[in-house]
């Protein structure tokens, strides 16, 4: 696989139409609420990360979007068409979380079956099947029965199956759960390549580093509802940790600083350091301005970019991550 060099975290143009729209999707099993109320929009060409702890409702949400389960309430549209529309489905690829296939078929036969289901002609299938096999690194084993594949190989053929029709939208439910580190990197590159081709990717995952490196926008779900959403860069800078390195600490400065940022730790001494949390970058600028006005020499302001993991843990643990 070849990396295309496309950069993640690019801002998306605002004018593109949403490819996936959900309006108040809800799924209840008996008295268990699997998805409380899901509304979201995913735009063309975007790689959208759908994150959340175990049991948050990620798989249930995707299953509703691809038509495997019936929403209890709410609606959704994919490519502007209602759920279940065959024309939309022709342009959708889906890798289930529990990738299980008719494993008595050979790899090629399995892809041929799925190609037929997509309505691809014989020539198209003959051309495309070796292509996707190579894409997922199974070029040499298409003649083997899927039963003889390792778990990771089965997940790879699942990805191949999802890309067979050159889809405009791909739903991947934890596409790397069975893959080795190399496989994970391959999938990361594959997603970036899809993105460079303008394919919209809906990625379910709890591998945060993976999401962080490929996604443009993410939604974090917990207990069946979206608790945070936004462009990756915004989410990462939403709450910044910042270190102010000062030359002195005049009386009352720490107290005053607290009106701009949330002070977390102060180290006194000849070179005092104040560690604080800021809601955004503007708050840091105001804090620096205040420090200068109150006569504290500012030697350095070191913003610590938080990882997605920190943001995730923070948001999710705020309301309890335990499945309920």
């Amino acid at each position, binding site marked *: 696989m070849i990396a295309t060099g496309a950069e993640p975290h690019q801002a998306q143009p605002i004018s593109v139409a949403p490819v996936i729209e959900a309006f108040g999707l809800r799924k209840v099993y008996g008295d268990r609420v699997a998805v409380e109320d899901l509304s979201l929009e995913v735009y063309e060409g975007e790689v959208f990360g759908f994150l959340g702890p175990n049991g948050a409702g990620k798989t249930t949400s995707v299953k509703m979007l*691809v*038509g*495997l389960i019936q929403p209890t309430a709410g609606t959704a549209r994919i490519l502007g068409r209602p759920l279940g529309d*065959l024309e939309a*489905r022709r342009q959708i690829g889906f890798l289930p979380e529990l990738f299980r*296939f008719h494993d*008595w078929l050979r790899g090629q036969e399995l892809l041929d079956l*799925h190609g037929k*289901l*997509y309505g691809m002609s014989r020539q198209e299938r003959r051309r495309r099947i070796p292509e996707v096999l190579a894409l997922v690194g199974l070029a040499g084993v298409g003649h083997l029965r899927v039963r003889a594949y390792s778990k990771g190989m089965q997940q790879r053929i699942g990805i191949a199956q999802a890309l067979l029709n050159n889809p405009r939208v791909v739903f991947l439910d934890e596409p790397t759960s069975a893959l080795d580190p190399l496989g994970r990197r391959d999938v990361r590159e594959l997603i970036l390549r899809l993105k460079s081709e303008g394919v919209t990717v809906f990625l379910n995952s709890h591998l945060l580093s993976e999401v962080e490196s490929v996604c443009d926008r993410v939604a974090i779900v917990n207990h069946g509802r979206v608790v945070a959403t936004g462009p990756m860069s915004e989410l990462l800078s939403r709450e910044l940790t910042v270190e102010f390195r000062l030359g002195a600490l005049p009386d009352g400065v720490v107290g005053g600083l607290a009106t701009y940022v949330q002070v977390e730790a102060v180290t006194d001494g000849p070179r005092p350091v104040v560690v604080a949390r800021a809601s955004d970058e503007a708050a840091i600028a105001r804090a620096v301005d205040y420090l200068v006005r109150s006569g504290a020499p500012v030697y350095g302001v070191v913003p610590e970019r938080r990882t997605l993991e920190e943001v995730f843990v923070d948001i999710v643990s705020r309301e309890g991550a335990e499945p309920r």
Partner: protein
Amino acid sequence: MKVLVIAQLTFREGLRKKLVWGVLLLSLLFVVLYVWGFHLFVQDWREMEARRAARGVPAGTYEIFASAMVLLGLWTVNFLSGVMTIFASVGTIASEIDAGTLQAIVPKPIRRWEIVLGKYLGFAGMLALYIAAMVASVILTARIVGDYTPPNVVEGTLLIVLVMLILLSLTVFGSTFLSTVTNGVVVFMLYGLAITGGLVEQIGTALDNDVLIRIGVISSIVVPSDSMWRLASYLFQPRLAVNFLGPNPFGTTTPPSAFAVQYAVAYALVLLLAAMLVFRKRDL
């Protein structure tokens, strides 16, 4: 077109089942024994006729006994086809839901009812081939070994196919909402009920007992498979043989009406439609 893709897959999948091969092997054994048995029967009959002629007794009616042999053979074919139908299709949807193999299929540009219909047609095609081959074995044996050809072969065979379709509809319907095991138990119980009900009705006819006859009729409303077999058996025999045998476990003297056939066809269709409807709403 998508229906045919699923039908083809199902056909192949059916042929992969060990139980199906078990029944096929059993069937092969049956055919061999049947040819041999028919051969012995014809030999015996000739010897007997020779002895009778020597004693000056008038010849018996070969047709009646040859017909009974054919009836026995076709009854076995019908029974084996019923068992094979249930074995082959008992888990068709339930087990695929459990295994998760439908999760990559259903989101494809295919309607859910097409999946159900495709599966139905795949099994129906496989089983119809089986029935055709088995009926042909029996009829050819009778013809070549016994020099006897039963009447109404096409109509009778179509009725055996109808029996298979009834059981297939029932099994596929059950598998859209029951687990494989539960479905197997339920369908075999219903199949048994139909067979027992048919027997009870024959006993009722023999004894002229209305209650027993009514039980039989009710069972053939619940599952019309046995009554369709009895109509087939009636058609497969010359009247002479029907009257000679009287009410018996394998045939009948009072065949079901044309309305019963319409009912059975409607029964199979309605259950198939019901299977499509249930599967349409099923969470996978």
